[in-house]
C-alpha cells in the first residue's frame, strides 16, 4: 500500500466531517483510485465507535459490496429507458410496416395470362389490376334458357349484337382518336375457363 500522508489525513478529516468542498473532491478522487483507502475508512469508523461507545457492533458484517452492486444495477437500468424507448419505437415501426406489407394484396405476376392469350397488348394501368371476367353461373343458366337459345331468337339477338358492336366501335374510335394514342380495340376478348359454356356470338 502506498500510503500518502496527505491522503490519509484528508480521510481522517472526512471522518470528522471537517473537510472543505475541495478536500472532499480530492479525497473522493483518491478513493476511486485506491481501494485500500476504503478499508482504512472502515477501520477509522470502528475505532471511532469503540472510543465513543466502548464497543463495536457486528465487526464481521459487511454488506457494502452487495449494496453497491445492487445500486449500480439499479442506476444502469434507470439509464436504459432512453434506449428502451428508442428500441420500442423501432420495433413498433417495424411491426406496423410488416403488418401493412402482410395486408397488401400480392402483386399480379403476369397480367396477360389472366386476360387473353389470343394476342394483343394489355395496357397496364397504375393501381388497377386485370379482372378475370366471366359470366355468372346463374346468368349463364338464364342465357342458356330454351326460349333464348332457340334458333329464331338467337338469330335476332345476334343481329342486335352485331349492330350495337358496330355502333359502339365507331363511337369509341372517334373519341379515342381525339383523346388517346391507345390503339382502338375492335373486339373485347375474355378468357374462357374450361368449365364455362360457350356463349355464342
Amino acid at each position, binding site marked *: 500500500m502506498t500510503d500518502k500522508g496527505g491522503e490519509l489525513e484528508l480521510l481522517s478529516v472526512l471522518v470528522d466531517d471537517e473537510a472543505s468542498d475541495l478536500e472532499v473532491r480530492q479525497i473522493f478522487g483518491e478513493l476511486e483510485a485506491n481501494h485500500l483507502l476504503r478499508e482504512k475508512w472502515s477501520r477509522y469508523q470502528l475505532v471511532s465507535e469503540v472510543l465513543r461507545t466502548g464497543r463495536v457492533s457486528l465487526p464481521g458484517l459487511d454488506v457494502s459490496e452487495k449494496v453497491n452492486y*445492487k445500486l449500480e444495477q439499479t442506476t444502469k437500468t434507470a439509464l436504459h429507458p432512453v434506449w428502451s424507448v428508442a428500441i420500442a419505437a423501432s420495433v413498433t415501426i417495424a411491426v406496423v410496416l410488416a403488418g401493412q406489407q402482410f395486408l397488401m394484396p400480392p402483386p399480379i405476376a403476369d397480367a396477360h395470362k389472366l386476360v387473353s392469350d389470343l394476342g394483343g397488348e394489355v395496357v397496364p394501368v397504375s393501381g388497377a389490376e386485370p379482372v378475370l371476367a366471366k359470366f355468372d353461373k346463374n346468368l349463364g343458366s338464364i342465357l342458356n334458357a330454351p326460349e333464348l337459345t332457340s334458333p329464331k331468337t338467337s338469330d335476332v339477338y345476334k343481329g342486335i349484337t352485331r349492330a350495337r358492336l358496330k355502333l359502339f366501335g365507331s363511337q369509341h374510335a372517334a373519341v379515342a382518336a381525339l383523346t388517346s394514342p391507345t390503339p382502338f380495340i375492335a373486339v373485347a376478348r375474355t378468357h374462357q375457363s374450361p368449365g364455362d359454356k360457350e356463349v355464342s356470338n
Partner: protein
Amino acid sequence: MNSESDKALIKRAQKGDLGAFDLLVLKYQGRIGALISRYVSNDADAEDVTQECFIKAFRAIGSFRGDSAFYTWLYRIGANAAKNHLVACKRRPHADATIEDVDLRESNYALIEISNPESLAMGNQLARAVAEAMEKLPSELKSALTLREFEGLSYDDIATVLGCPVGTVRSRIFRARETIDEKIKEHFGVMGGGYDR
C-alpha cells in the same frame, strides 16, 4: 452533542454519488445490522434485511432534510425494514422488544444484540486493542482525539481548548488514528469478511 455529522457524504449521496453512499454504508452497517438482528434471528435474513435497509435509504436519501442525525433517520428505515420482514414472514417480534419501545437516543443505540460468540469475541478484542493503543498515545495526540471522539468538539473548538492552530488539531487527530490503526492491523490483519453467526 451529536459528534456524528455526515453532511459532506450525504450531500454527495443525494446527488447520486454511490461512492459517498458506500462510505455511509461502511460507517453504519454494523449498528444497523445489530438493530435488525434483534428482530430477525436468521443470519441470512438479517443480512438481506440490512442490505434492503440501505438500498431503501439511498432511494429515499433525497428526502433527508438534516432535521435529525442521519443515523437516527437510518435507524427508522432499518426498524421498518425489520418489521416488514417479520410481517412478511408472519412472525411476531420478540416479546421482550418492540420497535416502538426502541429508544432512539444516540447513547442507547448499543442495544443488547443477539450475536454469535465469535462476533462478540472479535468485538471485545477490538475494543481492548483500541483502549490499549489509546493509553499509549503521546499526550498531545491523546488529548486531541479525546476531545474529538469523547466530547464531540469541532476542530475550531479543539484548537481553542488546546491553544493551537486548526491545522495542528487536524494533524494530531490524524496521527492518533493512524497509531491506533497500526495496532488494530497487528491484531486482526485484514478487517472485514463475512457475516457469520
